[in-house]
């Protein structure tokens, strides 16, 4: 809980103009792209108490140092464009929004790397790189508004990943502010960061907010890699050194197919011919929804594949010819250049169909390309009767990052709550079909150990323990954390128990009076005084229950709740 003196001190550290604790402002920084059901909101109580927008690594360091000393929860945030809960505050505290750290510090055309502030927006970066004849090898479909640091923290693959890999493959080195305020370059050896023996820190945090940087040594890939996907739990990423590629021509091909078997077969055939820059598909149901919102092109089949080739005109034309030839076997129709470009331009717009909801329940999971037909069949069977759109983009490991969207309406509170299970079930179905979680954030914490691998997860946990034993930096993400019920929900539980206890006693006397009289004759509600007595006992019971609930990890709550949500959906859908 932030107190008055905290607000002033935090504002002093970050600068008055870059700090806010106004109610309307904290409200805006307490959500991400996903709409949460009302009760989930009530239980998780995602509500920031203040926002800081640091402008330098040193300010971040001083913020973290102060927050750690004063046990203030800190939640790092890019631009809030993810939906995995990675940027949601769970115990109040301070949201540290990084968009003011948005500079390009260095462009090195020799090593083909750039160094940027973690808060730079991909869209802006791509524009600036274009002026230099460069481009990012991979960027997210949320590029017009997402930050570089945000994608690194959340992890995943995107446009360009079919050829060049996901964000993990692009990061060369990071500057990270650890939870204790120390600023490190991940070029330090993995031992120095993740184990005990530390080298001299760059900056340990101070009170005068003054700092001079030192030159970094050669990058250590493994140490860097452990911070990618870590959702800001191990530290706040402030600067990024990443790979860039020369700007080349993109030739987008849109190929339409009659069914999923031909679509998936064709995608595998394309990968045998070439490793395109981007290989993406949408299902016929997604196509139908796009048609409803007037965004579907006029094509022969309703299963669409977008295959973007990167190279010179001659190279692209040659490969396109080979692909066109191969597609005949899969009853594929290579659509016009105009449609190809339309689909390429639409690569940033997967949520066009939200208007039909007006809400969407999203989910994302990696599934091996060769298992996609099984996965789709499994989903169709499991979610029979639901309106589900599905799309997927292949990464460099021939896995498909599958994104599903269920149409829903958040204004219908009960069905929307029960429908929430679908997002979690898609991931489970994906894993059953040989897949893996796409990103961890808060909702997929149950998959953390498997996602990172035992060895890396242990290293990460050790660093967390060493630098943030009280778990003040982005708690509940990556590492399980208990529920933190809001006062409102806590009181609700207590009063519910207060009424339930005397009612249960009265009911027991009515149902089995002889049993109660024989064993607990003193448990009785027969007048106002006794009702009040048991009411107070009930309050106590409620208090114990809500305290106990505060010990249960969110991942466990989700696991327990999932079958009930499934059942509820069947009843209320």
């Amino acid at each position, binding site marked *: 809980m932030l107190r008055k003196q905290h607000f002033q001190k935090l504002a002093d550290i970050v600068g008055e103009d870059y700090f806010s604790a106004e109610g309307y402002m904290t409200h805006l920084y307490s*959500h*991400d792209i996903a709409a949460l059901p009302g009760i989930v909101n009530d239980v998780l109580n995602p509500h920031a108490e203040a926002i800081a927008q640091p402008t330098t690594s040193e300010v971040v360091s001083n913020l973290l140092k102060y927050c750690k000393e004063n046990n203030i929860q800190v939640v790092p945030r890019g631009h809030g464009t993810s939906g995995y809960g990675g940027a949601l505050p769970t115990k109040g505290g301070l949201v540290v929004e990084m968009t003011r750290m948005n500079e390009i510090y260095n462009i090195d055309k020799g090593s083909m790397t750039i160094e940027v502030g973690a808060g730079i927006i991909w869209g802006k970066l791509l524009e600036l790189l274009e002026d230099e004849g460069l481009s990012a090898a991979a960027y997210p479909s949320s590029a017009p508004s997402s930050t570089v640091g945000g994608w690194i923290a959340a992890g995943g693959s995107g446009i360009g990943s079919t050829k060049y890999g996901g964000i993990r493959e692009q990061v060369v080195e990071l500057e990270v502010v650890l939870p204790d305020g120390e600023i490190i370059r991940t070029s330090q050896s993995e031992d120095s960061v993740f184990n005990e023996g530390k080298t001299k820190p760059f900056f340990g945090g101070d009170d005068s907010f003054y700092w001079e940087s030192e030159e970094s040594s050669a990058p250590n890939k493994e140490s860097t890699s452990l911070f990618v996907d870590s959702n800001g739990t191990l530290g706040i990423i402030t600067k990024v050194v990443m790979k860039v590629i020369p700007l080349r021509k993109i030739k987008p091909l849109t190929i339409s197919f009659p069914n999923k078997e031909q679509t998936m077969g064709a995608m595998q055939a394309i990968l045998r011919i070439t490793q395109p820059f981007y290989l993406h598909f949408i299902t016929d149901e997604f196509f139908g929804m796009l048609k409803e919102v007037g965004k579907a092109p006029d094509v022969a089949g309703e299963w669409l594949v977008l295959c973007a080739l990167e190279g010179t005109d001659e190279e692209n034309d040659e490969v396109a010819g080979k692909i066109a030839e191969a597609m005949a076997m899969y009853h594929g129709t290579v659509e016009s250049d105009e449609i190809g470009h339309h689909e390429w331009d639409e690569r940033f717009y997967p949520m066009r169909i939200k208007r039909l909801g007006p809400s969407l329940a999203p989910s994302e999971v990696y599934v091996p390309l060769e298992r996609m037909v099984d996965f789709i069949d499994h989903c169709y069977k499991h979610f029979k009767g639901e309106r589900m759109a599905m799309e997927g983009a292949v990464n460099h490991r021939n896995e498909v990052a599958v994104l599903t969207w269920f149409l829903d309406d958040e204004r219908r509170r009960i069905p929307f709550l029960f429908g929430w299970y679908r997002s979690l079930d898609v991931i489970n179905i994906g894993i059953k079909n040989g897949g893996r979680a796409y990103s961890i954030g808060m909702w997929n914490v149950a998959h953390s150990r498997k996602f990172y691998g035992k060895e890396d997860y242990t290293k990460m946990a050790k660093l967390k323990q060493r630098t943030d034993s009280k778990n003040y930096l982005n708690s509940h993400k990556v590492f399980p954390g208990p529920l933190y019920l809001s006062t409102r929900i806590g009181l609700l539980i207590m009063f519910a128990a207060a009424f339930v206890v005397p009612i249960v006693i009265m009911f027991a006397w009515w149902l089995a009076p002889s049993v109660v009289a024989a064993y607990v004759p003193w448990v009785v509600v027969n007048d106002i005084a006794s009702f009040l007595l048991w009411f107070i006992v009930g309050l106590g019971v409620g208090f114990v229950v809500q305290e106990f609930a505060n010990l249960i990890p969110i991942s466990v709550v989700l696991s327990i709740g999932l079958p009930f949500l499934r059942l509820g959906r069947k009843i209320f859908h």
Partner: protein
Amino acid sequence: MTKPYEPLKIEGLDIEPTVCARCGFCTFVCPAYLDTLWDSQSPRGKLYQLRDLIKNKKKIPADFAARIFNCTLCGACQEICQTNIPLLRFWQLTREEIGNLEEWPEIVNYIDTALQETQNIMEMDQDDRTLWTDMVDDLVEKRTGIKAEVAYFAGCNISFKGTLAHLGENTIKVMDAAGVDFTILGSEEFCCGNPYFVAGGFDKARELAMHNLAALKELGVKTVVFNCPGCHRAFAEEYPHLLGKDSVEGLEFLPFSEFTLRLLKEGKIKFTKNYPHTVAWHDPCELGRHQNIYNPAREVLNAIPGLKLREMKHARNKARCCGGGGLLKGTNPMMSVRISGRRVEEAEKTGAEFIASECPSCTMSFNDGIEHKNSKMKFKDLSQIVVEALGL
């Protein structure tokens, strides 16, 4: 007393905040957000707040109302919107709701009073409507209120602000050079109502619109020419919306660029003189994104011998705002100037000598922005370039 959010509900737009995908694409094209980097100024942030207010049937608080007016209504948010929310209309109707709550900013109330009392935004006597014609007195002397097929509609800014009078003079010179038989309305020209449309005071604009259309029809006008995209949009889009399509039947509304292009194509004017200048073209929001008119000005500029046209990084439907729209100049002048300064910086990168556009509001904004940034660039309205290139 209207019901809460009635303007939005009548047009079925009260659901739009829920339709918003919260993707934030609108944030990094929004001049107000880019000026502050706080989500409270972004379309996404405003929609999120409105979603809760509409859901809980709560009024728009005064501080939020002020933020709603921190917006140039440039339409960049609508252009990039993931879920195709008609944001321009949405913001207009939200402003109407704010008007219903009597929470309009002071400057809007001032304009409202001025329009009610004097039919122009400057609170000046309507008889002074023709002050702008001083330098072209000889060309318009016998043209005020005469019957003609072509009319020039100057608008309040050009009519009353001396620094903008040259836009009107230029247009008159071009018309004269092309031998166009034209008329001007003089004191019968009322404000087009654009400030009301921008502030969401639609009903208040009704009388102004009806008067202007009646005055034009009485003179037998078929084509109305504008230097001001705000006036043009009022006639071409808002009047039919407000009064029905029939109200503008038989009338065509042309921005200066389109009119000039027509004269060029008809051979009534011809650029023969060399004009050795480089020009960075800025698309006015109210012509470009709002009405999808991008090409005529470029065609005119490309027809001028020696002129080199440079495009800015963000051009056409992606053009950044000059900061002058949406009444921002009145509600938050400092923000307006900073926004303009950023657009000037972008223009500087093209290496051009001039920033050019066709809009009195852009003219004012860019002149402020150039001063703010101490830029060496100069701003020229398209009409000025045309007149210089024609040697008039």
